[in-house]
């Protein structure tokens, strides 16, 4: 967060209101100005007290460089880094790509697809804790529904999902995709609905149908939105604690932890809060560029309005 002022300052000198300024633009004066300040004040207070201050505090806690040698020497840190990379990299990208494809499916004008959409968005509205618990039970081994189904339908003994590192990480990723894919599908569905019909008609005349239409027409139109959503989702997913904590619980023996849960354990189970902050702060070299690209993209879009 020490980049706050810097990021804002180095960004292009454009503002949201820029393109909206009507011809007779005038500066706010007197009472209006005071009202505007009063309206902004609550959020400014929230931002300073609950974002800037804690972020600065976290940086200060994690500024001791010896923490990072402790981290590297910790047996769990490097495997956790790999897990986090898999969880975020696979989770976000598979989810986004499937959401993009499925948004095309939900666009089909059939009554039953509309009904299906209502069921399909259910995971988004289902509280994450309960969804995580349910996934944990489904995969808990031979007592779980998944292994029960495998035995009943295929006659095979399902694996013990949480006894193997890769199966555990995979379970977390699947649960994560289940929970969050519907939200992004809705976003892409909404975006596809705004693509004018005649663009597709023109493309069809030029021979672009099926996959070629998707590659040459739909995707280029949605590319900017897709990038923004992927970046935003990456940042949100790095902070996702609930899925891993409740689905695999980090087990076996911490082999499926991600940085969010490992930092939690350092801070609250091993009473090393600074190490916990350092564990998550060690992703800053990846986070900052993502945040900068995201800001630039969003500013461009906001200005184009």
């Amino acid at each position: 967060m020490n980049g706050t002022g810097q990021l804002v300052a180095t960004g292009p000198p454009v503002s949201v209101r820029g393109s909206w300024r009507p011809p007779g633009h005038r500066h706010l004066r007197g009472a209006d100005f005071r009202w505007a300040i009063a309206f902004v004040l609550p959020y400014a207070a929230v931002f300073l007290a609950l974002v800037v201050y804690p972020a600065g505090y976290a940086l200060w806690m994690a500024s001791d460089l010896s923490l990072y040698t402790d981290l590297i020497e910790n047996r769990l840190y490097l495997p956790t880094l790999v897990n986090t990379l898999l969880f975020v990299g696979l989770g976000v990208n598979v989810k986004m790509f499937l959401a993009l494809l499925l948004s095309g499916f939900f666009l089909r004008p059939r009554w039953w697809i509309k009904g299906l959409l209502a069921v399909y968005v259910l995971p988004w509205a289902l509280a994450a804790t309960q969804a995580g618990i349910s996934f944990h039970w489904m995969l808990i081994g031979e007592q779980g529904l998944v292994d029960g189904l495998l035995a009943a339908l295929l006659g095979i003994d399902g694996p013990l999902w949480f006894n193997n590192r890769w199966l555990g990480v995979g379970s977390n990723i699947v649960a994560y995709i289940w929970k969050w894919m519907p939200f992004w599908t809705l976003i892409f569905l909404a975006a596809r609905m705004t693509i004018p019909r005649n663009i597709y008609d023109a493309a069809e005349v030029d021979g672009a149908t099926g996959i070629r239409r998707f590659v040459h027409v739909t995707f280029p139109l949605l590319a900017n939105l897709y990038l923004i959503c992927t970046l935003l989702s990456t940042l949100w997913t790095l902070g996702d604690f609930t899925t891993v904590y409740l689905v695999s619980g980090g087990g076996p023996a911490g082999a499926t932890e991600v940085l969010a849960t490992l930092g939690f354990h350092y801070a609250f189970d091993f009473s090393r809060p600074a190490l916990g902050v350092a564990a998550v702060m060690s992703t800053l070299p990846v986070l900052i560029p993502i945040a900068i690209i995201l800001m630039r993209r969003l500013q461009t879009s906001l200005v184009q309005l």
Partner: protein
Amino acid sequence: MSVAADLAQPMRLARRRYRLRRVLTEAGSVMLGIGLLIWSLLPVYQMLLIALDPEEGEIEFTGNLWPAEPSLDGFRDVLTQEARYLEDFWYQFGNSLYIGLLTMVLTVLIGSLASFAVSRMRLSKGSLLTNAALLTYAIPAAFLIVPYYRIMHTYGLADNLWAVIAAQVAFATPFAILILQLYARLIPFELDDAARVDGASPVQLYLRIYLPLMAPALAVVAIYALLLAWNDYLYQAVLLSVRNMTVSVMQGQLFSDTDAPWNAMMAAAIIYVLPPIALLFALRRHVMASLTMVSSGL
């Protein structure tokens, strides 16, 4: 004659091929639909399966694919608060509801006021604040839990529901401001100017023009904020003590206890997940309308 006959044959073939393709596409989309239905409902079904199991305590539902003797005992135990861990369920539910509703109201209020001032009243340099707001997301939520734990003591909010509400509002508002700004471009400035000429004050503009016209976007923001608070486990677990526990924390705690009354626990889970689902379905038209507007702007 012969020319027509020559043409009729390939035409018929082409038509048949077209019809075959349509049937295949249709069959494929039905298959995909069934697959999605199972994918979406399997964890929900697992919850029902456990909740409807009559046995308490022992893991009786092992490997069952359907409830052999469905019973509503689990739900009864939740209502009467008789099962272990559920003695204070409705009090904890009240806490969750309090956090969820206040997060929702405050996010809508603070977010809409700020984005009204910046985008409608054209507060100069105001966009610096709303842009900086998005930087909140450069810090993933789990990063801040340790500093929050310390800071809430400084703010005098240790073990206070307001600590959680404050954290959730701080995370929900940047997204709220983004959505509101993207949606606000729908409302023509002439409307504001006309009202101004008629002597409307900024407060009247906000209440009479901005809020009613922004209703679909505000619905999305409200649902987003409620879901954020409803989904949360980490902040509620760390910032609140057992005395002020919420449903989310109570349920997550049970992993170490295999003897927990799982049917009642799952019944409680089902009761807990219902309110946001109901709200989403009540507001679904608003949600779709504003997502369409917002995504077309990006």
